[in-house]
């Protein structure tokens, strides 16, 4: 039983990581129908940037976090103003797969390249926000950072879900994703919503990177894997439901931990990806995507 509970705790922790990135992807896709493939790179910037500021430049931890989050927000804002604005506001319509995938894919490549040049190839981890040994209840052990990760994921999922469901601003944001032209006709500034939510999810991802990095550590190459798992979690939430993306991420994390614990520690990722692949191709309706989604 204790083994099961420990695996469950580990699975929920990694699942929370997948879930929060899935939620970030889903909320932005809902607003502008673009997949943010750079979300993992924002998390990497958050983690490595904070670690560098604290360890190399001896900046106090809270100031380092604040400076790093501000820098990530600025990068996201600049990307929106410098690229997305020209691509989508000046030349609306007809972007197809290029619009869905490749603008943020380009950003991801640039961030990774810059991070490699600036931070090198070493593994970095920001200091723990809640330092101390793992919390033990009988045979059940859970890392403090893990508790923070799960709490932040659940809270973020709930806040994003409530924002989209219960606020006028959230409904206006959803309307932009349904129809840019329609939303503009009724006076909604779709570009503003796209920019705000892009910056907000970038900062959230960076904060999550700071919270998570004591557990996993980050290199300049950590971003794409995180983004990819986030895409999978968001996919199981039809790319539009952040609350469901968190739940999907938690389920994927728990499944991964259980496969690692009870089936094979070496092949758990292979099995997990194969199972997810099987679900997508055999029961695509579980994703809730329409045939014209792309």
């Amino acid at each position, binding site marked *: 039983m204790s083994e099961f509970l420990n695996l469950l705790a580990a699975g929920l922790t990694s699942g929370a990581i997948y879930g929060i990135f899935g939620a970030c992807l889903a909320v932005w896709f809902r607003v502008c129908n673009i997949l943010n493939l750079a979300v993992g790179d924002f998390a990497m910037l958050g983690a490595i940037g904070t670690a560098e500021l604290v360890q190399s430049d001896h900046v106090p931890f809270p100031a380092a976090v604040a400076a790093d989050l501000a820098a990530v927000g600025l990068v996201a804002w600049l990307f929106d103003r410098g690229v997305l604005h020209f*691509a989508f506001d000046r030349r609306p319509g007809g972007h197809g797969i290029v619009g869905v995938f490749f603008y943020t894919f380009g950003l991801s490549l640039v961030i990774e390249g810059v991070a490699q040049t600036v931070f090198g190839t070493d593994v970095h981890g920001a200091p723990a926000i809640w330092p101390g040994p793992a919390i033990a209840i009988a045979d059940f052990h859970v890392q403090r950072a893990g508790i923070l990760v799960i709490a932040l994921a659940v809270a973020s999922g709930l806040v994003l879900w409530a924002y989209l469901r219960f606020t006028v601003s959230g409904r206006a944001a959803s309307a932009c994703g349904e129809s840019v032209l329609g939303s503009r006709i009724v006076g909604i500034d779709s570009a503003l919503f796209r920019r705000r939510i892009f910056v907000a999810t970038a900062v959230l991802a960076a904060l999550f990177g700071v919270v998570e990095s004591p557990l996993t550590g980050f290199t300049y190459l950590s971003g794409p894997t995180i983004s990819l798992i986030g*895409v999978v979690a968001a*996919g199981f939430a039809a790319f539009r439901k952040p609350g469901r993306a968190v739940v999907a991420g938690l389920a994927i994390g728990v499944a991964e931990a259980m496969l690692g614990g009870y089936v094979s520690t070496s*092949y758990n990722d*292979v099995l997990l990806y194969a199972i997810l692949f099987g679900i997508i*191709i055999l029961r695509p309706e579980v994703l809730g995507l329409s045939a014209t989604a792309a």
Partner: protein
Amino acid sequence: MTEPAATARESAEAPAVTPQAVRRIRRRDPVPVATAAGVAIVGSLVLAAMNGSYLGLTITTGVGYAVVTVGMVLQLGYSRQLAFSQSVFMGVGAYGTGVLETKYNFNSAESLLAVIAIAALAAFLVGVVVTRAPGLALALATLLLPLFIYQLATFSSWLGSFSGIDGVLPFWNGPTYESALVRSGIVSVVLLGLATGVVLRVMRSGVGFQLMAMAEDERLGESIGVSLRQRRLEVFVFGSVLAAVGGAVLASAQGLVTPTVLGESAEITLLIMVFVSGRKSVIATILGAIVIEYLTTSTAFISTNLGIIEGIVLLLVLLVEPDGVAGAVDRVLGRRTDRWAGNLRSWGAARLRAGADTGGETGGGAA
């Protein structure tokens, strides 16, 4: 005489258009064959001129990628099929060649044919289920494929784990390494020429128009009687087979296969090659694959800062010309030829006017 009677007589007088005649007319399109021959001849001459140098090896490797990107033009660019499994099938081709030659003593031709058959079968089996998935679900499913196939390859000692398989034969051996490289390169460009010809033939045929209609709007495709599932499957299998042939070319050129050929980075490289050069142009993607392969392997500055350069170039291309360098060249040449045509028209009109004026004066004088 009434109109229907006239129509009946005209149709009786008109030569009968038989299906054979229609087929004959359709076969007259010279572009696919000419382009295929051009690619094969120019490529062979270039490789012969390289005489087995390092640059020749780089170009042959680029030719391997080009075979894959030619298939991607049909799959991603022309049919807009959101499949990201090309690196996996490139791995099937490369590992298939390596395993058959080093463990089962197949020769190069046998292994190439076997790899094509294996890839076609595998793509058909995967495609039957994968192409059921709509739009983004297909993208999602095929994004997952490289993840677990790469891990399987690295865990498998039979496939050489992280070091891969060494000792893959060149397509056409020679007395020296250089001559073998030149001969294998020529076989590779002939394969590339064949791939180019077939892809152009499909794009310029009725099937190509059906694919174009499907890409624009699947309901439009269905309304004109296109079997969406069948066409999706055919495109998936064809693109995957070309990816496997490209993988076999890479393995043969380099003499070894490593798991990197299967991974996300290989897929990213292929996407960059297709999108930067022009996802709808076969010739542009061939040139793009070779030039990008050359730049990434032969220039220290670019290989060190590859990510930044790829990202910035990709963003610039998408912003300035979403159809890539080929689209930009088309636009520039189109403007220039339009200007030339305009100049020609005004020159012709001026000549006609001058002729008419001279004629008018002469005529007037005579009168």
